[in-house]
């Protein structure tokens, strides 16, 4: 059976630099999180999956279709919702007018059903009462949710979301997680984020990118387990630890192979596991 999204040795080059280099993935319905530092290639990878950018090499297939072929690309886009990292809003528009405009581009040609769908997605991101408000009068978090609303039009089978929780307050993030978790039951949701707790709360699978290459691809639980036995709370920072920081309690969280003096072993979090992975060699690793 064909995966919803398949990448086979896909790469994307800007000048002499490979932003994404020989990435191979097969993604099935569910919520998949992309983690990685700035410049890791997350946005480039998402743009290729969203058919906004052509790979420089390799084979990309979405719904078993080839985005290099115009007709198949159009068919992919009919089943796709995409939230770019930075949504350019025509600021004179109202929230409703913007989503309505994208809905027309997404082939919602009949006004009645289109307006109902626009209202549905605005309600889904808790902007139902702000449809008539000008975009320039919306807060950053509200604009982010507006960008997400247009991506939800038509309940797409593939949602590509580049940092959907950026700029949202904790309450909004929780509400958004609920929306995405529900979507992930039937659709493939691929999201990038810098928030490891978003990934821990939402995703069954996580892909860690660094330098355009996959450093980890597997379950969230498996990644967390890799850090088991290597997270220590101590009164002093451990000079030997690759990563160490002072927590809110005044104690130091040390990520180290060996126990620091008078340290207490604690349960690892996804953030610990991610930081440990980042601190390791650049050798690609797989969970299974």
């Amino acid at each position: 059976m064909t995966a919803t999204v398949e990448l086979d040795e896909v790469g994307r080059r800007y000048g002499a630099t490979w932003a994404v280099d020989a990435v191979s993935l097969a993604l099935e319905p569910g919520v998949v999180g992309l983690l990685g530092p700035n410049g890791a290639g997350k946005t480039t990878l998402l743009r290729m999956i969203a058919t906004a950018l052509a790979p420089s090499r390799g084979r990309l297939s979405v719904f078993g279709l080839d985005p290099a072929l115009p007709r198949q690309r159009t068919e992919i886009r009919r089943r796709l919702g995409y939230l770019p990292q930075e949504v350019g809003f025509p600021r004179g528009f109202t929230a409703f007018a913007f989503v309505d405009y994208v809905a027309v581009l997404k082939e919602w040609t009949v006004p009645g059903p289109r307006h109902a769908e626009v209202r549905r997605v605005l309600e889904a991101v808790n902007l139902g009462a702000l449809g008539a408000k000008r975009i320039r009068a919306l807060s950053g978090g509200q604009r982010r949710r507006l960008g997400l609303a247009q991506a939800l039009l038509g309940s797409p089978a593939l949602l590509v979301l580049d940092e959907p929780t950026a700029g949202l307050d904790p309450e909004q993030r929780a509400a958004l997680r609920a929306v995405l978790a529900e979507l992930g039951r039937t659709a493939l949701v691929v999201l990038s984020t810098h928030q490891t707790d978003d990934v821990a709360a939402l995703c069954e699978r996580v892909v860690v990118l660094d330098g355009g290459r996959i450093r980890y691809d597997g379950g969230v639980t498996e990644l967390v387990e890799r850090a088991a036995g290597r997270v220590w709370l101590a009164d002093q920072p451990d000079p030997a630890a690759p990563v160490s920081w002072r927590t809110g309690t005044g104690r130091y969280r040390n990520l180290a192979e060996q126990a620091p003096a008078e340290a207490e072993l604690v349960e690892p979090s996804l953030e610990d596991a991610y930081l440990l992975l980042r601190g390791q060699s650049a050798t690609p690793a797989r969970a299974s």
Partner: protein
Amino acid sequence: MSAWHVDDDALARWVDGTETFARAASSEAHLLVCAPCRTRVAAAVRAQPSRGERAELPEFEAVWGNVRDVIELPRVSAFERLLRRVGLPPADARLVTLAPSFRAPWLAGILLVLAFVVVAAQFGPGRGQAIFLMVAPLLPCLAVALSYDPSIEPALETELATPYPALRLVLLRSLAVLGIGLPAAAAASPFLPGNVSYLWLLPSLGFVGCVLAASTWTTPLSAAAGISVAWFLIVVGTALAGSAHAVLRPAYLGGYLTLAAASVVVLLARHRHLRQPQEGGGWV
């Protein structure tokens, strides 16, 4: 609270709207101060036998939907109505008039033309004509380029991932820009010093076609910039050799028409390569 209460029949008549004015006023005055009677109003409304047969009470959802329509739906502009009247499907008409980058370019184009008419008028017939011919034919192609260039269009990344055909979008916007820009520019011509015929519209048409065709290789704005530089040199050269008006000689006019026709052929043949080269090239 009083000991007297509105009796059932009077309440039913008040609810039904069949009570006399004086008795209705009396009942209303009592209802304002009597909570027990007020609680009977809802039951009296439900008990109205004629309710189902009267004019249907509007559904709340429908009323609310209509109110939201009035508040939320973007208003249909006169230009959108015009586009629908000339046969454009409503969704396409909406797309053209709502296009984020649409309004500014054509407004700027019209203002520029008017500004150049004023400027050209200060230089007398010879130089005035040269300035006008240097600028006016380029405005439509610049407006078209601006209406679909990645550096200008704020929502382009979002638009890129939709199934709407890029060629159709480009042509719709181009036609809309031309539909407003060309008549405005043409209307300004008679106010120029000297005699500048409307023939300048022909190179203008050729340049617009050229921008669209060149957009299958590069960005619309780069194409328009290249054309602008070339045209500027041609007009200056012609003006130095005698009169700038020579660029509208019959021999040249045929060339402009050929350019327009060839551009259409190229655009149709290569429309699948229409692209917005963001950071090195993507699909449209």
